[in-house]
């Protein structure tokens, strides 16, 4: 019984390993590309944060 299960485990595991190593991970590559492009073109910098910070002192000064 245990041998049978062990055999099944190997039969399932070996092709899975081969699959992972041979095929190009397209989705992961897109994710990596997006991350690098955002960095290089600075598409996701904190422009909104300084704006929010600016608004608060501006509001405070206008109230005074």
């Amino acid at each position: 019984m245990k041998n049978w299960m062990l055999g099944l485990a190997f039969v399932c595991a070996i092709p899975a390993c081969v699959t992972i190593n041979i095929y190009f991970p397209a989705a992961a590559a897109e994710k990596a590309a997006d991350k690098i492009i955002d960095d290089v073109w600075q598409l996701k910098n904190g422009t909104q944060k300084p704006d929010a910070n600016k608004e608060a002192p501006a509001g405070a000064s206008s109230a005074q």
Partner: protein
Amino acid sequence: MKKILLSLMLLSTLLISQFVAAAADLEVNTPAISAIKNSMQARHGQLAAFYASGAIGLTKDGLIAVKDANAVPLAQRGALTGLVKDENADRSKLYKEIAVANGHPEWQPEIQSTFAGRWIDKAQSGWWVQGAGGWTQK
């Protein structure tokens, strides 16, 4: 029978999680890749205006090219050519380094074509990009 089913489920969960872990991320945080990224980021400050004026555009093979040299004053054309050459060298190196960092140098063409699509998708409106039928403005 229940034991078999349970162990099968466990096994498949294990295999799936293994696959997901392997597929979730490519290694892009090596010193070599970071250095290329920094160099490209610094150069982008100079390139941005040329993208906007249509002097250069994004090619379908993940590089950049001079599209309209006349959009640039004669005095700047030499510098522009140099910038494009340096940028393309960095981009080729980047694609190669990502493939190598993940233990698959043979992935370089696929990484390059993945980037080609993403650069074009993320390009700002007004920039020129190369499609199957030639240059188009976003």
